[in-house]
């Protein structure tokens, strides 16, 4: 832990302000609460909102896992984990069930979260209606009056033009049958995991200065039509390394002759399956090399 900084970088009054916003957000599931976002030592878009939420809830006894697109070993994930190791001295982990706080970008871990855990999402755009209604005054009014016909118009347009809803990430959800919420750019594959999740879900948008939350065991429903029900998207393959048929896959181009490798985007999940002896088709080749 390096000196010169307060515990977890932010000063105590700032943390207090953020905790107040979090409490309000938890009390009104899905509602966006404004907060005084601080300048952080990383650029907007790299998780300034998530890092502030994490900083204000983390304690010395916490264990932190940070994932970026499902991976624990990418630059963003490694830097944020190291940031908290240096400013708060907390232990880091890559194991989902060992973590008490999980800060994430673009994924929810495959391993089911349990009670007592907190998942913190980094949010680029908290307003689900932003692409449809440019005025924030108007979108706030629409949230206040639960006037969400416009969001369904977008789904209607997709079905009319493409025969299906073509939103594959940041798929809009209804929280607690009241607030329309942007689930952040997680794949629609992960949306069902948010519904009735035992863990607390917190969302921080640093640039847009909004915090929102989904308390444990709250209903989160993806919008759909009765005759075009919500379908989570997943590549129709098995993980090349661990053979998992139920996890979300990344497609990796391996050469310039059309070679493709599908692997679990959740690196922790994939590694542990391989440690347990599961082997996928390409896993054999990897072992042979």
């Amino acid at each position, binding site marked *: 832990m390096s000196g010169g900084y307060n515990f977890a970088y932010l000063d105590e009054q700032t943390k207090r302000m953020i905790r107040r916003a979090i409490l309000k957000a938890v009390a009104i599931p899905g509602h966006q609460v404004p907060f005084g976002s601080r300048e952080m030592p990383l650029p907007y878009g790299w998780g300034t909102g998530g890092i502030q939420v994490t900083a204000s809830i983390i304690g010395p006894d916490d264990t932190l896992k940070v994932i970026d697109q499902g991976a624990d070993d990418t630059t963003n994930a490694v830097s944020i984990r190291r940031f908290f190791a240096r400013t708060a001295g907390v232990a880091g982990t890559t194991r989902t069930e060992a973590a008490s706080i999980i800060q994430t970008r673009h994924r929810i871990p495959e391993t089911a979260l349990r009670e007592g855990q907190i998942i913190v999402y980094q949010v680029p755009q908290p307003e689900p209606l932003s692409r449809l209604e440019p005025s924030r005054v108007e979108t706030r009014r629409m949230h*206040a009056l639960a*006037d969400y*016909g416009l969001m369904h118009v977008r789904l209607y*347009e997709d079905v009319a*033009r493409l025969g299906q809803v073509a939103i594959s990430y940041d798929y809009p959800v209804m929280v607690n049958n009241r607030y329309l919420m942007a689930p952040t750019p997680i794949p629609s594959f992960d949306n069902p995991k948010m519904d009735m999740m035992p863990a607390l879900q917190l969302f921080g948008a640093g640039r847009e200065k909004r915090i929102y939350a989904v308390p444990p065991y709250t209903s989160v429903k993806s919008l759909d039509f009765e005759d075009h029900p919500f379908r989570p998207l997943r590549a129709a393959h098995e993980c090349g390394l661990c053979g998992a048929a139920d996890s979300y896959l990344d497609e990796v181009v391996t050469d310039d002759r059309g070679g493709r490798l599908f692997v679990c985007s959740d690196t922790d999940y994939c590694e542990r399956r391989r440690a347990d002896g599961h082997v996928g088709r390409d896993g054999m080749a990897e072992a042979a090399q």
Partner: protein
Amino acid sequence: MNGEALLAARGLRLSFGSVLALDGVDVDLWPGEVLAIVGESGSGKTTLLNVLSGHAAPDVGVVWYRDPSGRLHDVHGMPAPELRRLHRSDWGFVHQDPRRNLRMGVSAGGNIGERLMAQGARHYGNIRSAALEWLERTEIDAARIDDLPRTFSGGMQQRLQIARTLVTHPRLVFMDEPTGGLDVSVQARLLDLIRSLVSGLGIAVVLVTHDLSVARLLAPRIMVMQHGAVVEAGLTDQVLDDPRHPYTQLLVSSVLQA
């Protein structure tokens, strides 16, 4: 509020600074009735429409609306969510400029379906067939259901706006110069369409227009406004054939005889 009036206003008064836009206006509208409000520019017609529909609040006076269950609502006293609900179900608003009401980046079908979806319709097939039905009723080619309104002509946009407004079968529609800005032959077709839809569905309409022939064609009852006050009101034929107030006489005599 007497009898079974659908909408009633009493003693509406509203001034913008020193300009008196409404000066003690009373309105009664019965279910299924079409009422025309005529007068020159600046006479307070549109202001009256905005006040009646709850978009603007009067300084003095009250507007009552009777809902389908017979309960009376004070339009300016009801909570904002309730007024909003009224506007997207029981009421409709047709603007002179269809672009104010239409979503130009959304297909014709989506425009028609929006009010249905706002009311909770969640069956794509039903929304789609309602949109097709209303395109047909407003004489728009069904093949254009997935086209954007910006590719439509002015008359078609206006008809699309009417389809989008009437799809939820409102009981009361406010129309602000619905035929303004269209050429004469398109106007005639549109008037025909409005007349048949309104009488067929039994919709009550408050129609603001400066065109006396539009009022004569659509509205059995008329109110003539000048300087924010109603100077003459009654049956349209009576008022226009035998105007009593000097201002009405001037209006009627200034229409060019073709």
